[in-house]
């Protein structure tokens, strides 16, 4: 090692002309707030960087899957399934594919990244930092949101030349935002809760994916026979798919703004739940 000790006489983290430190070098309130902002941005940036670096595992597969669904159902079987509820079938399934992509990817990213950090022990670097629980949870959610939205955005870009367009951009984006928040927060909860990769994969494979695909992605729920129609009404993802369909095509079965309101409340509740789980520290700290 070299013969110098770097950094002598330099400032402490969080120092800035406006924030500053108290005379003995400890942080004042403003400096602590500035430090929190920087730390949150750093951890969020780390999560985004992980998604981008691993693009062939994080972005490409869900885009290919969704595009294949569109090619098979919208293209190869297009002659058989020309229209549903009076609209082109490809246009009909696009909203559900977007929601499925966001739910799966937002959930997978937040749960996997957090579980990996726990399992490999490097989460200690974050846990011993001055970041608050809410800031850490939001940073992990940012990674999930980024992955979900980028993947869904690419699916939308791939589909747009072949469909009639987007009826209500605001509604379509709002539903994707709420869906991303709900499922990235659920991913954080699963990342904290899971004791093994199997447990984490179990939630994704046996709960999230089936609920997504049975949420009226490929069919009109109102056309189903009983009891499937009633059962579908208990699937929360159905309402997100239906609201997204209202945004993309203008077609919907349920009360869209009620679905949005409920989704917004759920988004807040699951985020608070994730923060609370992180704050109590169970499964994170002995």
């Amino acid at each position, binding site marked *: 090692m*070299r013969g110098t000790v770097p950094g002598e006489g330099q400032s402490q983290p969080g120092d800035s002309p406006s924030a500053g430190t108290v005379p003995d070098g400890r942080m004042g309130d403003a400096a602590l707030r500035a430090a929190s902002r920087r730390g949150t941005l750093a951890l969020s940036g780390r999560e985004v960087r992980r998604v981008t670096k691993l693009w062939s595992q994080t972005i490409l597969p869900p885009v290919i899957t969704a595009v294949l669904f569109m090619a098979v159902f919208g293209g190869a079987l297009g002659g058989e399934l020309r229209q549903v509820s009076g609209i082109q079938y490809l246009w009909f399934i696009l909203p559900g594919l977007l929601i499925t992509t966001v739910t799966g990817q937002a959930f997978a990213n937040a749960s996997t990244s957090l579980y990996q950090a726990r399992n490999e022990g490097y989460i200690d670097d974050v846990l011993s*930092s001055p970041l608050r629980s809410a800031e850490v949870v939001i940073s992990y959610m940012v990674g999930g949101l980024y992955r979900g939205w980028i993947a869904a955005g690419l699916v939308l870009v791939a589909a747009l030349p072949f469909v009639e367009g987007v009826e209500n951009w605001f509604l379509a984006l709002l539903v994707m935002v709420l869906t991303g928040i709900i499922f990235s927060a659920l991913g954080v909860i699963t990342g904290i809760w899971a004791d093994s990769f199997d447990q984490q994969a179990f939630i994704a494979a046996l709960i999230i994916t089936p609920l997504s695909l049975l949420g009226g992605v490929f069919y009109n729920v109102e056309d189903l026979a009983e009891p499937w129609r009633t059962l579908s009404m208990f699937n929360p993802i159905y309402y997100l798919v239906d609201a997204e369909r209202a945004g993309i095509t203008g077609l919907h079965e349920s009360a869209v703004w009620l679905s949005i309101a409920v989704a917004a409340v759920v988004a807040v509740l699951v985020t608070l739940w994730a923060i609370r789980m992180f704050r109590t520290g169970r499964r994170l700290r*002995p």
Partner: protein
Amino acid sequence: MRAVHALGIHDLDKVYGDGTRALQGLSLAVPDGGFHGLLGPNGSGKSTLIGIITGLVRGPVGHVRVFGHDAVADPRRARTLVGLAPQEVHLDRFLTAREVLSFHGRYFGMSTADANARADELLAAFDLEGKSGTRPNRLSGGMRRRLLIARALVHRPRLAILDEPTAGVDLELRQDLWKYLSRLREEQRTSILLTTHYLEEAEALCDRISMIRDGRIVAEGTVPELIAQFGGPRLEDAYLRVMRAEPTEAPR
């Protein structure tokens, strides 16, 4: 006016969920600028104590103050002042060596420019310049250990906690680390809490040494004081006498 200790611990208890009582009424003080050794066998409570100070172990009973800040009730301020090099080498495998340091600094509130500059300084100081773009899992064991210690120092902590920093490293690196840590204390007045199983390391570096056993501090003093109190020409003899004493004989 009473001097503020770098670390002040009073009557600390920790019972894990399975009923294991890891710490029992432990008290310890490290003065500002002090180099304090913590010696004890595996399972004596050293890592639990360090975990409580750094927020990695929850729910202790008692008082832990870092430069006067309550590390349990107001942990954020305390954590900004502490740098931890843990015993186990856990480094983020998605980042390069330089990013490991830079991101750590930013988690602790440094600006990106400051954190990057500090990362470069420490990479140079720890002879890791040539590995700045390498991911930790591609570094040798000694390099990973150096990176871990460098990471603890990125945010310029006033108290560095080094949990067996020389475990499993070769003699040359160990001696380099000793020199570096001594200079860190002398030149920057960084307070250091060091745990180690190498008694000669504690003897060479520490002003004072605490011996921990069954979650309690059972002996404390300078090396000459400990030798005078417990006998033997070397610290090792005093250590063995303290650790082999019947629990009731162990002095508090």
